[in-house]
Each structure stands twice: as C-alpha cells, then as structure tokens.
C-alpha cells in the first residue's frame, strides 16, 4: 500500500495581513496561524493525556522518506464526549490531518480535523484555539 505524501505550508504574507495579538493561550503561542497544513500519514501512537491529547503519525513522501509528526488534539474528556474511544486511532490507521504547524518549526502541529480511511471526518481540535475562524469577534 502506498501512502501518498501531501503537505502544504504557505507563506505568511499570502494568508493574513495582521499578526495576531498575543494572547496567553496555547494556540497563539505554540502554533503559527500562517502555517496551515494538510498531512496524510499513519498513526504510530495515540497519547491520551491532558490538557491535550497527542496523535503521533508517520508521513511518507513521494520518495518513501518517512517523517514523524506529533498532532495536538483536544483534551481527552472533550474527545471522549465527541465519540472517540480508545480504539478510534489505533496504530496503523491512515488519517489525513488538517491543522497548523508549530511556531518553532518542529514537526508538531495543532490538529483541526482528521479524516479517516472511510471518509468520516472528525474534529480533534481543542477549544478556543485562537486560530483563524475561531476568534471571538
């Protein structure tokens, strides 16, 4: 089975004109709203930890090179109420992740949505991320 690699990180100038006001909030400090990305990979580990769960995935590029990413999700209690179970993201599950990359440039991202192999879309994000579209107006 060939896992397609798909990643897109766009330049800041293309997206938002104003830098977000600093908020003492995990999203604004940890992740870059100007680096949206879509990753397609395979789950290697799911960490059910507070205050945010982390999904570990391996992403393979067209040349077969594998890069490991960590995806921040919502709190376990939030995910459980959205219908996730301990069996929802078992190792070996192929998923597509939409989110934003870490500000420090590491292979970490804040996950917004994930899509499962059957096309089912799940929201994995945490609340009030400060991400675009989620800001209080």
């Amino acid at each position, binding site marked *: 089975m060939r896992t397609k690699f798909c990643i897109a990180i*766009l330049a800041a100038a*293309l997206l938002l004109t104003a830098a977000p006001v600093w908020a003492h909030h995990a999203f604004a400090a940890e992740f*870059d709203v100007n680096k949206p990305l879509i990753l397609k990979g395979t789950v290697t580990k799911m960490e059910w930890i507070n205050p945010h769960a982390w999904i570990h995935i391996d992403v393979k590029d067209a040349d077969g090179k594998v890069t490991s990413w960590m995806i921040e999700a919502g709190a376990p209690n939030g995910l459980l109420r959205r219908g996730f179970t301990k069996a929802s993201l078992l190792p070996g599950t192929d998923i597509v992740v939409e989110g934003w990359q870490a*500000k420090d440039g590491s292979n970490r991202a804040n996950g917004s949505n994930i899509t499962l192999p059957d096309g089912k879309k799940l929201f994995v994000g945490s*609340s*009030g991320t400060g991400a675009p579209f989620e800001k209080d107006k």
Partner: protein
Amino acid sequence: MSKRIFALSSSIAFAVALPLAAQTPAALKASPGNTAGNSGKAWSLSKTPWGDPDLQGTWTSDDTWGVPMERPVSYGDRLYLTEDELKDREKRVEQSKQRIENPSDDSHSPAKAQLDAAAKGAAAPAPAAGAFGRGVDAAPVPGQFGEYARRASRQTSQIVDPPNGRIPELTPEGKKKQAAAAALRRKTPETWTDWSIYDRCITRGVAGSIIPVIYGNGLEIVQSPGYVAIRYEMVHDTRIIPTDGRAHLPPSIRSYMGDPVGHWEGNTLVVETTNFNDKMGVGPNGGGFQSEDMKLTERFTRVADNTINYELTVDDPKTYTAKWKIAFPITHEPGYQLFEYACHEGNMAMRNMITGTLAEQAAAAQKKN
C-alpha cells in the same frame, strides 16, 4: 402524550415565571429553564440518611453555555430574554445539538479553507456570520467542541446583581491589577510565569471551576455527615466543605481555592469561602481579579431532581466598589460522567509555547541583523 403534558406544564411554568422574572434575581428560582425536566408531578426534595438535603450526583453548568457572564449593554437591566429571543436561542441550541450528533456534516475546516483560498490567491474566507463571537447569542462555536446547552437558558447574563448584569467598577487597587494584566497580555510571554495559573494547570479557582467554558463543565457532589465534597472536572480541584459552621482558618493560611465553611439554611447549602491568595480572579477559568480579603458566598438549592440553583456572591471591597452576584442553574445531563483531568503531567504546551517564543525572537533578531 407525556411530551404534550411536558409542553403544557412548561408553558404554564413560562406564564408563571414571566411576571416574576421582571421583579428580582430571586425569580431565577421560578425560571422555567431552571425546572425543565419536571413533568408536572409533585416533586419533593430527597434527604440523605442523616437528614441533610441531598445534592449528590454529577452536575454540569452546560445549560448556561452561551450566556455571557456580563450582560451586553443593549439589554439594560433586563435579566431575561423575550419570548422571541428565547425561541431564537432555542434554535441555536438545537443547531449545536445537530452539529454534535452529525459531526460528519460539519464543514468547519479552517486550515483547509486557508490553503484553498491561498491556492487561488484569495484572502482567507471569513467565518459564517453569527457562528462565533460574544454576547447574548454568541454561543455556537462549532458544536463538536463537545459541550452545548441541553435546555436553552432564559438569562441574558450570568451576573444577576447589580441589575445591569455587569461587574461593578473596580477600586483603584483593582484597576492596578487590571492594568498589570493588560500589560502582561501585551508582553510576548517568555517564561512560565508569563502564563496564567490556568495555563499552568494549577487551578481555575472557585468561580472559574463552575462558570461554563468551552468544555469540561462537570462537577460531582458527594456528601457525608458533616461534610460536602465538590469535585470539578477540568483541572480537577476538589473542595472538602465542613458544614458545621466552624471558624475559618487563621488569616496566615491562604490558598487558591480558599477555606470553605458551610452550613444549611433550610434546604440551601451556604458556603462561605475566605483565606484566598490574590494570584487569580473571579471569572471563567480563574480570569479576572481578586484580593486576599475576598469573601465568596455560594448557595446551592436543589429545586428539582435535575436542577440545583447556584448563586455566587463576590464580596471584595479591595477590588470591586460593590458586591456582585452570579446565578445560574447546574443540571443533570444524561450520560455525563467526569473524566480524569490530570493536567500537569502532560502539559507539553508549556514547553511548546516557550520554544515557539524563542523561535520568534530568533527570527526577529535575524531580521534586524
């Protein structure tokens, strides 16, 4: 048929509640939102084997989700929505429910929308009108965040006193704290102390643990003779409250959650908490301001099988020029259980936030050179 009876009894409750609602915040007790779920049968308060009113069980403040803490000015002194406004809120509550129950239909996909727009050279699309924001019908951020009101509240604000539903003016000392907090918000956070007590997984405080926020609004009440324990879900504080009206701890002993002492007034549990520190405040997740001299008085009155009316009076003359009061019902939510929230152990965000700041500073320094 039972639904019809319920609808009829609700309508009667509405009719009874409306004239009361205009009078006083005490009318909250007659608010239909606070007694929803009663099917018209006579209800009597159950007691524990040792004779105290029974408040035990798992409760949430989710039914006040979307009701702002402070009332939008346009509502003036009006504590309750009109019938039309209530219908509108009920619609929004239903929308939230649908989004939870049909998550695959949700098109909330902001990162993808950004990428799609950028690929076309366009600006990122604006969020749907009315979908987010603050104010009396602000609530529905995407329902999949997991929490939503099961019953639409009639209240225009969580604050019921003063009559305008807004936090009273701060004292000069309170204003000093407000200015310091604003300065901290403007500052690029660099080290762990630049983040809030909540961000650091320490606590959300007494008020912050029950004011509804984006998720984790559950609490569990357990009683034993002479004690009531309240366990809050997010950040998992537990308060052990003696109900013998004993004296408070000496003033030299202070803490984030303070020293609670309770007693029963009829069927109401009254809890007075003092001995606070001044490192946090009275607001969602512990935001806001307070002094060490603050006294919080809470009243828990069970008014139905599925409803406790909750009131919180803030008395802190060093910070606020007048007392003020929050009131809302806490209710049973079918199937709700408290999940563990061991926050500090997995708080990778602190590390990531600091490395994010360092990366930004390095990039800025490089740009300068």
